[in-house]
């Protein structure tokens, strides 16, 4: 019996052994998590957040270009898989939960969130200098502003939410004007931070030769990119003087190529995004075609038409729409897509100058575009009168910024949607905004 009594103790010890296995705090074995990343972040972690933020700017940007490009009648997309490209997007009978409404919007705010996490993590990082922190924050705010602007471009007068720092307590939807003002402020904050960021970033924006920020990869030059975006927002806000100032602080110059600027770096490869705006000429199936008016309205011998379009072996017709030309702005899946370039800034300079009565600067800028980008002669219309210069400026924007998502926004800014959007078929319409996404409606209690 004595042995048995001893056994009892062994058993109790065994039970305690099993029981004393306190469970460790579980960490995700597969990924960094929101509960770990913002705490005591190192420069390496912050740099990962920078790359993640930049990379997601690319996601569904193509969908944005399709949506606003078709809305602005820059191109058609014929897709056997999805009739909505020749349906909803031309009829204006838009769905608040369809890909063209939600996809880009969702990703833009995901970039904003990732950048917010970057700001949070950098601010609380014990390991890096204040100037380096300012560099991270300046970059994050600049990118956030850009992404909000893209979301707002599609939403137009619906307005958007700009105060989204706390994802559990989102700010209200604000009007388009208020949103633009908030984006300006965010850009200014970013610019201030970049100004305090010292000589260099702790991260590299140009680890690859195809990077979209070559020449814009220091706090100073990234600040010029920030001002470039600010200039775009100021002309949207019709704050012409500020626009001119911002252009002057940006990289705009007549001494550098018009193509110089910031780009989305698309690339083939595992885990990378390809430039799906490229479709090989004369493809069949899922294709994009130049809207006929772009060809019809062009000045003779405009080099941009040559560059951006190519006649097909045979025209394609879909639901009473016919296209004769493929879009050749991009020549491979690896081509970068512009975010903002010297060409747009020069056009912004022209626009702001017209609006402030400085026709000389305006005409000079327009002629630079006409000659260098379009291979055309100087502007032959009246140069002492605002109206024809505005027409010319919008026309140059149409051709220089073709397939970059500007046409529809420009026509909206100048209230020309109803007059300048060609209606190809009975039932098609010109519309000025996409519906607010369904998931936002639900959250806002308006549905």
């Amino acid at each position: 019996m004595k042995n048995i009594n001893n056994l009892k103790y062994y058993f109790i010890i065994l039970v305690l052994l099993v029981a004393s296995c306190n469970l460790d705090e579980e960490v995700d074995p597969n990924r960094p998590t929101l509960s770990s990343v913002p705490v005591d972040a190192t420069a390496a972690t912050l740099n990962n957040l920078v790359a993640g933020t930049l990379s997601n700017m690319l996601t569904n940007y193509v969908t944005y270009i399709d949506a606003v490009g078709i809305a602005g009648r820059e191109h058609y997309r014929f897709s056997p898989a999805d009739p909505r490209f020749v349906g909803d997007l031309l009829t204006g009978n838009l769905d608040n939960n369809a890909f063209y409404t939600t996809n880009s919007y969702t990703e833009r705010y995901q970039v904003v969130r990732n950048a917010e996490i970057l700001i949070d993590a950098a601010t609380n990082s014990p390991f890096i200098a204040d100037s380096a922190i300012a560099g991270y924050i300046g970059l994050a705010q600049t990118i956030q502003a850009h992404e909000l602007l893209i979301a707002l471009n599609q939403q137009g007068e619906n307005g958007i939410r700009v105060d989204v720092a706390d994802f559990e307590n989102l700010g209200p939807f604000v009007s388009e004007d208020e949103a633009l003002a908030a984006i300006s402020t965010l850009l200014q904050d970013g610019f201030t931070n970049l100004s305090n960021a010292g000589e260099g970033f702790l991260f590299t924006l140009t680890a690859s030769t195809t990077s979209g920020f070559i020449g814009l990869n220091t706090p100073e030059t990234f600040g010029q990119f920030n001002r470039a975006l600010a200039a775009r927002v100021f002309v949207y806000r019709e704050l012409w003087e500020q626009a001119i100032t911002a252009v002057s602080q940006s990289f705009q110059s007549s001494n550098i190529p018009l193509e110089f600027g910031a780009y989305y770096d698309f690339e083939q490869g595992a885990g990378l995004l390809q430039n799906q705006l490229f479709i090989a000429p004369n493809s069949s199936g899922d294709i994009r075609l130049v809207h006929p008016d772009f060809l019809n309205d062009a000045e003779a011998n405009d080099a941009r038409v040559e560059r951006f379009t190519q006649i097909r072996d045979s025209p394609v017709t879909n639901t009473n729409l016919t296209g004769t030309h493929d879009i050749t702005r991009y020549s491979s899946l690896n081509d970068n897509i512009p975010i903002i370039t010297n060409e747009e800034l020069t056009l912004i300079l022209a626009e702001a100058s017209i609006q402030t009565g400085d026709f000389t600067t305006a005409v000079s800028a327009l002629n630079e575009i006409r000659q260098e980008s379009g291979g055309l002669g100087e502007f032959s219309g009246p140069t002492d009168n605002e109206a024809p210069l505005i027409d010319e400026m919008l026309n140059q924007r149409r051709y220089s910024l073709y397939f970059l998502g500007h046409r529809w926004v420009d026509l909206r800014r100048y209230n020309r949607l109803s007059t300048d959007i060609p209606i190809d078929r009975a039932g098609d319409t010109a519309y000025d905004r996409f519906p607010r996404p369904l998931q936002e409606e639900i959250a806002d209690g308006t549905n």
Partner: protein
Amino acid sequence: MKYINILIISLLLFSVNGFAQSLTVKGKVTDPATGDPLTGVNVIEKGTVNGTITDIEGNYQISLKNAENAVLVYSFIGYITQEIDVNGQSVINPELSSDVLNLEEVVVTGLATNVKRSNLANAVSTVSSEKLTGTTSPQTLDKALYGKLTGANIVANSGAPGGGISIKLRGISTLGGGSSEPLYIIDGVYIDNSAISNGSNTATAASAGGSVISSTQDNPSNRIADLNPDDIASVEILKGASASAIYGARANAGVVIITTKKGSDGKTKISYSQDLGFASILNPLGTRAVSHDNAFDVGGAGAVEAFDNALVNNSLVNYEDELYGNVGFITRSNLSASGGDDKTKFFTSISYDDEDGIVDGTGFDRFSARLNVDHRVSKVFDFGVNANYIQSSAQRSITNNDNSGVSIGISLINTTPWDNLFPDADGIFPNGPSGSNFLQTVALSTVNEETDRFVLGGNLNINFFNKEDSYLQAKLQAGLDAYTTETTLFFPEILQFQQAGPTATNGLFSRGDNTIFNYNLSAFLVYGSKISDFDLTTSVGITRLDFNQNRTTTQAQNLVSGTSNLSQATNLSTFDAELESVDVGYVIQQELNYLDRIILTGGVRADQSTLIGDEDELFFFPKGSAAFNLHNFDFWNVPIIDKLKVRFAYGEAGGIPVPNLVTLNQPQFTGFAGSNISGSTGSLISNTLGDPNIEPERSREIETGFDLAAFDNKLSFTATYYRKTVDDLILTANQPTSSGFSFIQTNAGELRNEGVELSLTAIPIQNKNINWEVTTNWWFNNPEVTRLDVDPFTTGAFASFLGIFRIQEGQSPTEIVGPIPGSDGDVPLGDATPDFEWSIYNKVTFFQDFEFSMLWHWAEGQENIQLTNLLSDFGGTSPDFDADNDGNGVSNGDQRVGAFFAGNDASVFVEDASYVKLREISLYYTLPSAWVDSFSKGTIERIKVGVSGNNLVLFTDYTGYDPEVSNFGNNGVSVGVDVAPFPSSRRAFFHLKIDF
């Protein structure tokens, strides 16, 4: 409890022999059905520890302690216990009836204790070895359970060889956040039942455009398929929380407790069985009738000429037959031995199954070796070890959804009879006209999964003391389930879909290495005592589960011609996912038995787990039950009714937040995905917000019913009603996207399953010549979402215009919705839950040597989302393309294609999937023993031969291959989505079984 006492007492009796007393009773115990003597029957003087067992001739002799009022109790496993008043007789020759109704069966209900079925307060379904594998040769354990228990909805995901079965007990218990499948425990070892993706998504682009390697759509086996059904002695199914509460936070979807065979003392028995069989397609669909006149409609330009030429050359081909027409050869061999003495008992088996599928090159094979040993060291110690090694492999080809023309099913339906897909004299395959040449795919591709698995269980019992009125026992148990599953895909560069097409990469070689290492430990103390008329059993214990998974798949593209090596390629991509989890549970349970009249059980389990948001928080799962054996009360005086038990049970169980089936990401985390740009490695926040406070789903179930046995135990009837609510459902709810998140995973809903289960077993005829046993089960389950804290959402299929499942308060969670012409949004179109299921099992033994059995299974009223027809319509080949079922003047094919493009009529894709299947049928003959004896000179005890069939007959109006189908595999809500699946097969066998 009483049973345990008897068991323990009878164990003691081996060493305690004979007390000199006044009266001795002797006799012989026999089976009335056969007249054979019964060896090893326990004979016990009631109320004492005095007893003996019968010898090999069935004889016994017992000296009574208390001659006056003595009652002898005769008990034997598989037979109904009999009590006989001695009344001064000195010779008693009882006949023990076999326990067809399983009243005597012992059911495992606690983690450390058992209870006799007749005292059970829950409707626990048990499937015996006889019912499981006695009729025909099921491929896998889960496929052997169809129709054999109430309350279970069992659906095959496809007809591909080797597993892929979804079992839902008492309806769905989760909307995807918890485990949708029951917990499997075999001899105390928690068994992993993962379904591991083979990575073919890269080729099929079924999910996310092929950008991810692993998906749920590539038709994987679930790993319960590894178990050899022939090793199993019984399967008990705890269907709801009221029975499974003691298993705690993982028992929401029920628990399947598997007990493997054990040896018994006496002569060593050796059995050899050999099955030979064939598998062939169960339900070929045919193809659209083609003619000169409709060839253009089918194939477009050029088709008419091609048809005419093929007609002249007699080269129109039935491609369905070419692809699915293979007759698969099946062989199953099993050798087992069991035996032992009073100290050591063993069971060992070796089996090899090899089965070819109906598609060339597909198949399933499994080698399994097992050794079970139980040893009694002393009165104090006994232990057991169960060891099982399995090697299984399956070749399941590429079927199901596909967006790249790769899946053989999709290619088939895009092929017209005049196309030529056959290789030329040099063995070069021509390109298929639409989709990849599937004959080439089948001939040249490798799709293989191979598993090496060890399942080891050990238990040690320590009997601290064992007195007449009390005992104390410790039960220690350890289990290990460790396996590696290697998946291999090889698509050589000469394949059409590797040369051109959306996923062409000039050859693809993929190797997946998946390591699963699970172990569990438990320690229990059981204290039993007898206080006057009450038997009390108290158990306390602790359990620990450690589940670990490592899944990696590496894929190489742009292969060096002809090679299948990861290093002979230009592009490599990798999938890597890991899971580690620890659960700890604390259990206390009290049982009380008053003279087998009133049996009360109460208990509580507390669980903590690293998969729960707060890993230190204990979640409590209480239970309580009461059973009243009315017939044991003195007032009971109904002659016809032998037994009547009414029972009530309540229990709670948990559904632990399960990681994503593919990525293994846990819902408590908000993770960052890799997202790279310009040569820099990036981290991008997930679009799904995790919930750091996530809790287990919790089901609460009440169950009540009665069990009745009548007419000398020749008829039993069981009726059960249950109502199971599952609260704190983990849902993926929409977020306002401006938060940067699209979804949030959180506890946000409740659903309810309510149902009735009826089971009737009868022995209408029982005599020397004919023994007829019939069991019929009928059950239904009625699910409803009773609370939804988030907005209604659709899930589990492709798009609402194709039919999709909608989760909406007040509706069934398996409701299928979609638009119909003129409707404002989506309207209900069907439900994947059957209205009821019904099965009938008959077994007739005649002249003692012939045995005929048959199992029919009827599932009525469920609907499927049938998209195979639509895909066939696109190829112009659907068999019913030209018919006009609804008589609206538009052919079915045109109507479906029209509905697809208009996106306004999902009703054409939602189809009734009711069916009646002949699950199993068999006829066995046992050769005359005298003949066998003389022929084998006494070495062979018995030879049994037979023929059987599995899924031989299917009656259904459903237009697909099989109404049982699931494109998305095992999934909480999504079943019955039909996208060019692997067709199911019928299997027929010849059996030979020799006992030595």
